[in-house]
């Protein structure tokens, strides 16, 4: 069952630019296990939307099936949510976006929902560069069915059952880069300082933005032999750099020396400012991103942070040439050609 929080608020809660408090972005109480990484990600999504001053009702939360896909009930309670079927969130999000291009689409999925049953839809939503944020809460296992390995489990990693996974793993970030995503990042549920600016930038990016967030499953996959446990990720994660999200109106004052810092302006005028930790990475190069991910993998480490960014890719609507007015707002007069036209169409069938 879902819980409803008591509606008592401190009178001096901080409000954002549009007058909402952080509490206005909350959802129902989570029913996930205590300590689940997913709850931290939900909190980061909530915080990001609050800080970006997005009206909650202008967000649509889309998900499939699984522990991760339940989370949209636990944040942004004033937004519409759609918990669809297993592995099919991308197509539902595609249809929703076609109908109304003005909303912010936040898709939440898991590693089973994306990399196994939903691999086909994931690949194609990336190809079409649908304007959405796609967050994978990646714990390398199937939580709701008690801990089976998923397709993102690393070879040799062992969950609570103790049997090392014999199969190759799918790297969703590498896949997305190859399929043409404009924004690709990896993060860790335990690192909100990294995750929140990434989510904010992903929302501001126009086009498909993937954030693959390693999110340990405390119940089934937090073992010493798991490569997706809290301890393992903390010890082996290496960030591409630190990262600031600079909203449109903020004046850029701090000066960084060239080479260390890269600033990339997004489509809406906001910017990401990167303080790179690795000199080898060119964020605008697919090849460079893939090389770096693999280079760290060879060392047994996980490269996190922004991995690839191309802010200029046309999104689905641009490719289809759709009108700027949301299709669900078009009127009868704009849609129905009327009987006069039908008469001339009839003539063509004679």
């Amino acid at each position: 069952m879902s819980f409803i929080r008591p509606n008592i608020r401190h009178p001096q809660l901080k409000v954002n630019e549009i007058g909402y408090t952080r509490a206005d972005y909350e959802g129902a109480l989570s029913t996930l296990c205590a300590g689940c990484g997913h709850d931290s990600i939900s909190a980061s999504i909530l915080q990001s939307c609050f800080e970006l001053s997005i009206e909650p009702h202008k967000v649509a939360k889309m998900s499939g099936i699984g522990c991760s896909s339940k989370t949209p009930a636990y944040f942004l309670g004033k937004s519409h949510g759609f918990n669809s079927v297993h592995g099919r969130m991308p197509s539902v999000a595609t249809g929703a976006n076609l109908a109304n291009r003005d909303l912010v689409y936040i898709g939440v999925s898991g590693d089973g929902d994306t990399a196994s049953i939903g691999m086909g839809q994931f690949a194609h939503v990336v190809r079409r560069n649908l304007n959405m944020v796609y967050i994978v809460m990646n714990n390398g296992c199937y939580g709701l069915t008690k801990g089976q390995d998923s397709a993102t489990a690393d070879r040799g990693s062992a969950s609570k059952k103790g049997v090392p996974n014999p199969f190759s793993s799918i790297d969703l970030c590498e896949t997305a880069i190859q399929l043409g995503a404009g924004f690709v990042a990896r993060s860790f549920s335990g690192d909100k300082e990294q995750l929140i600016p990434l989510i904010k930038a992903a929302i501001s990016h126009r086009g498909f933005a993937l954030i693959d967030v390693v999110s340990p499953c405390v119940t089934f996959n937090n073992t010493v032999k798991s490569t997706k446990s809290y301890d393992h990720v903390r010890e082996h994660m290496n960030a591409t750099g630190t990262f600031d999200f600079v909203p449109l109106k903020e004046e850029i004052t701090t000066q960084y020396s060239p080479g260390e810092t890269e600033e990339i302006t997004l489509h809406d005028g906001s910017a990401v400012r990167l303080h790179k930790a690795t000199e080898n990475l060119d964020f605008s190069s697919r090849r460079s991103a893939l090389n770096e991910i693999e280079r760290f993998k060879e060392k047994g480490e996980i490269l996190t942070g922004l991995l690839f960014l191309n802010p200029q890719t046309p999104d689905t609507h641009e490719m289809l040439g759709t009108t700027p007015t949301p299709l669900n707002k078009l009127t009868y007069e704009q849609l129905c050609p009327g009987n006069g036209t039908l008469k001339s169409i009839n003539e063509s069938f004679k």
Partner: protein
Amino acid sequence: MHKITATNDFVIKFANINGTGSASANNMFAKSIFRSGIPVTPKNIFPSNIQGLPTWYEVRVNEKGYLGRRGGVDFMVATNGQTMMQDFQEVLPGGYFLYDNTKPLAPNYKRDDIQLIGIPLTEICIQEYADPRQRQLFKNIIYVGALSYLLNIQFEVFQKLVEDQFKGKEKLITPNLHALELGYRYAKEHYTDTCGLKIEARDLNQGKILVDGNTGTALGAIYAGATVAGWYPITPSTSVVDAFEKYCKRLRVDPASGKNNFAILQAEDELAAMGMVLGASWNGARAFTATSGPGVSLMAEFLGLAYFAEIPGVLVDVQRTGPSTGMPTRTQQSDVLPAAYASHGDTKHVCLYPADPKECFEMSFNAFELTEYLQTPVIILSDLDLGMNDNLCDEFEWDDQTAYNRGKVLSKEELDSLEQRWGRYLDTDGEGIGYRTIPGTHPTKGSYFTRGSSHDEYAAYTESSEAYVRSMQRLEHKWDTAKTLVPKPVISNSSKSTKVGAIYFGTSTQAAKEAIDQAEDKQLHINGLQIKAFPFTKEVEDFIEQHDYLFVIEQNRDAQMKTMLVNELEIDPKKFISILNYDGMPITANFISKQFINVMNQDKVTPIQKADRG
């Protein structure tokens, strides 16, 4: 030798090779009959192939207006060596066999009961044309020219047709007219008074059009205001989306900006196509997909979600011969049962059964109105015969006073003025349908969580048995509401009172009606009922009640519609006699009437009800 003689009442069949340009020539022939003012029914019998396999085109000419297949061939135009013997055998005694006599017929082509008409198509083309492609293409036009003479179709009709067809490509008019003349002249010189089949111009096609059903469905979607189409290519449904796109480009591009007031997206599979439809419909756009049986199997998952979470969506199923891949280019009505109950758990879906392109147009509009009002998917069950063949029907009509009924959707103002707590799945006005909200409508009110898992009246997740049962019962109540909104059946009563009925739907309708007339000629009287929708309305139940026994005519092996009638209306199955055609070819009037007559004559000796009920 007896020769078949008939005016405006015969069947002519063209045997061709796929990919040789025969289709446009054959279409031109059918259209010439239409423009001569005589009802005509062309059927394209084509292979699942792009080039090289046999293809046929069967045209029925009937001034009485019977539009179903009759059965039998009076005149064969045989241009395909691969099937020539089969085509030769198929001609009815007294019929005509037109062939290319550039080379003489092989000695095993022996029949003295048919009239041979040899025209040296190849030889004429070699003499006239240097380009091998032209030699191929114009062969077809030459035999059409010959038919113009043999069947007495006014040459001016063809002249006009060629001019219309090549409007904008005027250079092609003269060579096509020349080819027609070549055929006409040859036939006139060699076959004066040979053919007993004649076309006499009439004026029976006033207010009629000749168009394929898929075009009707697509136009219906345009007029219904559909803006989103997610789809995956599959024969015989592809042309629904092709036509939708064609007319969208003509009618839905914003003149000022050049931007599209529509979005058509080719999905990666039928799962995704249906997902797109539901996402868009959930978000307040009218959306549809078109597919065939194999696609419906995949879409079953999403149909269940849409049923339970109460999301609109229109699915056009242009049926083909199953099971599995079956015969992809042949027709059937074999998705009746799987469409109605698609998906796991207790699900059922509103289905509409169009019988001609005008019904495709109307039901397509109807489907969008119903799906939004009922907040449940609506499936249009067309088929290959209707969808891909040109069918004669009344002109499409649109009432400019029409306003779309978007169903129970709350606006921002309505949300503000609500006095009681809103629940997405609360049945506040007794129809079993809740009020929904579209994302983005109101900053603080009306948001909810759509899910395929069990939910209560306020859309909250629940594992309460009572809440689950309440929601399933409400869906059942909504189903009863649907019975009052779907199109009613059409009853055609016999000239004399009778206790025998016939039930038919979709493309079985035309042939069934003709068969009823054929039985009537033998003093056997049958009342007819055309089912237009599932769930069945009261009228269907009453009609069955009023008859001692009823024929159920359908184009599948398993009597799927009969099964639904028996189950849904709790009718004794012995009351029904199935007439089933499932060979992939459109059902014929002769096939149906033969069974009417057999059963009813036997019934005179031993009444069926008594015999069956013991």
